[in-house]
């Protein structure tokens, strides 16, 4: 078995596990015992593939961005997750988890959301399957992301404001976990990233791994080689990066680059660069890297991008960082905004600010002329227009 796969105890090397109160044990244990059998069953695979194809619009294109390639002196391919239904990679995971929840006989779905992309993707699949949906969202994020709140409500979801702590993603996750504790029998919690207690990180990574599975095939067609020289993705909790890296983990010739949000600068005190600022700790059910005080209190992160504004990182990433299988870089708010504008002007694609962090990394790298570089364009920027307008004064 690959050293980058989760082991039987739910660990990636030193990271992972299931640090959950007893109240969540039956739910998490039920998932742990059943998730592999369910997602590997023929019926599940067939419905998952069919929905990804006919509903989400997969495979997402692998686009050779020529003007971007000229600028960086390499072949830059964009994996177009932004073209998925609901506008980001998040739907790959929510489709998988809703099919799993159905098979577990769950009647009620809960989720946390930051910018609202995962909340929208969850509300979408609940509408599709006719299941009750409750989305927890920080009170501050509800104000910042009104259009996504409206989308969720139109699809029949109840959006509940998390009013504790900093009133953002971390607090929304706390509220979702409290809901699950109070509703231990009929409810499934759709976590949106490769975080949480085992088996969530592995399960979400598997659902997102369609990104790199398709990329291998598409690269073979376009370049004659299944693997790129570089695969680059942004990391908050790390789900699109996990999906982009998954089928390249055991191809050591592929250099994996993850880009965290440096906010106003890694050392500015307003940052979300967990691999630099974090230490080993436990949050939301797994042992990983975590931004925290000496006393073990979680530190509030900051990024202009709500989707990267998380004080931890999935345990798979903590392990890839520790083993140096992947390189963890960072991009500031300014780097990302400039990279977002550049893509818009060179290619006519407005990226999500999250994905713009991955694009910003291209500016800092030097490539050989024939290098093939794949960047995961994890989401589209429609939701960020307000931010772009304010930043550039359009």
């Amino acid at each position, binding site marked *: 078995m690959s050293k980058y796969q989760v082991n039987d105890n739910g660990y990636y090397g030193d990271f992972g596990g299931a*640090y959950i109160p007893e*109240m969540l*044990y039956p739910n998490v244990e039920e998932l742990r015992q059943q998730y592999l059998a369910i997602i590997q069953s023929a019926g599940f695979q067939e419905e998952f593939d069919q929905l990804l194809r006919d509903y989400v619009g997969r495979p997402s294109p692998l686009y050779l961005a020529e003007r971007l390639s000229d600028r960086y002196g390499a072949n830059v391919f964009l994996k177009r997750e932004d073209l998925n239904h609901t506008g980001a990679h998040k739907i790959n995971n929510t489709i998988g988890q809703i099919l799993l929840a159905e098979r577990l006989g769950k009647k009620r779905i809960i989720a946390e959301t930051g910018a609202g992309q995962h909340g929208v993707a969850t509300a979408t699949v609940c509408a599709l399957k006719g299941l009750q949906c409750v989305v927890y969202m920080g009170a501050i994020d509800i104000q910042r992301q009104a259009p996504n709140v409206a989308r969720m409500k139109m699809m029949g979801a109840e959006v509940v404001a998390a009013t504790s702590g900093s009133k953002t993603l971390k607090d929304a996750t706390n509220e979702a976990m*409290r809901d699950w504790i109070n509703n231990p029998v009929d409810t499934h919690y759709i976590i949106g990233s490769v975080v949480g207690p085992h088996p969530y990180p592995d399960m979400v990574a598997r659902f997102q791994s369609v990104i790199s599975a398709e990329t291998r095939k598409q690269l073979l067609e376009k370049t004659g080689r299944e693997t790129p020289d570089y695969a680059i993705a942004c990391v908050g909790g790390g789900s699109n990066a996990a999906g982009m890296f998954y089928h390249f983990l055991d191809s050591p010739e592929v250099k994996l680059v993850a880009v965290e949000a440096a906010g106003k600068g890694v050392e500015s005190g307003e940052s979300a660069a967990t691999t630099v600022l974090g230490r*080993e700790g436990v949050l939301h059910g797994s042992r990983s890297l975590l931004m925290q005080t000496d*006393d*073990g*209190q979680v530190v509030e992160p900051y990024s202009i991008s709500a989707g990267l504004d998380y004080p931890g990182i999935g345990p798979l990433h903590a392990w890839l960082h520790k083993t140096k299988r992947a390189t963890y870089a960072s991009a500031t708010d300014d780097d990302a905004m400039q990279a977002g504008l550049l893509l818009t002007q060179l290619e006519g694609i407005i990226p999500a600010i999250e994905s713009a962090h991955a694009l910003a990394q291209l500016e800092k790298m030097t490539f050989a002329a024939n290098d093939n570089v794949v960047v995961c364009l994890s989401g589209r920027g429609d939701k960020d227009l307000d931010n772009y307008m304010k930043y550039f004064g359009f």
Partner: protein
Amino acid sequence: MMNRIKNLFANKGDKRILSIYYTAGYPTLNSTVDIAEALEKAGVDFLEIGFPYSDPVADGPVIQHSSEMALRNGMTLDVLFDQLKDLRKRVNIPVFLMGYVNPVLQYGVENFCKACAAVGVDGTIIPDLPMYEYEEQYQTVFETHGLSNIFLVTPQTSEERIRKIDRLSTGFIYLLSSSATTGKNLTVSENTESYFSRIRAMELDNPTVIGFGISNHDTFVHATDHADGAIVGSAFVKLLDDPEYSTKIAPFIQQLSPSVP
């Protein structure tokens, strides 16, 4: 040190054991030991002192609030152990520390256990430290320092798992009245009755104490009809909001458990 808790249950006779939870450093940074002393005087049998965490997922609004205020007041594990230096000069009843695992990891598990033992803490309740991890990485060091780690049981916990918890426990077993965050009211239903009876019928080696949702005399009596004791948390923490709380501790305990002198 485990003797304090063992003796309590061994010698309790018909007594209904009452335990109180409160958060260290709340309402004021230095109120921790004064409250402990007042609770012992009021007749409480053992204490759970919470050390605050920024992300208390198993807690409802009241204990979330007390934790947040305690952190703002400057409470840390370092400060707490310093406050507890003279604990055993002032308080004789068993004391457990209750909190989340991350502050313990940062303090260092070994250092944490040493500090607990040094100040006379009898044991710990760490809800997000699951049994598997405890056995793998923590049990030896906890036992070396004579600490009794308490595990939770919910209505959904399987019999097999309860048996395992019984084997691993050295003080008591913490029965949650329902699967819930703290601060909800205990509602007596056929389900809770059959759950409590099921646990009683198992004839566990360890005493049982019911917590979560115990807030007044009726729920206290109901809980202790089914178990050796009961724990009151949120209802007491709410009382501490009152600026005059120090005069209200004794009457509060009196109305919960009037049999206490």
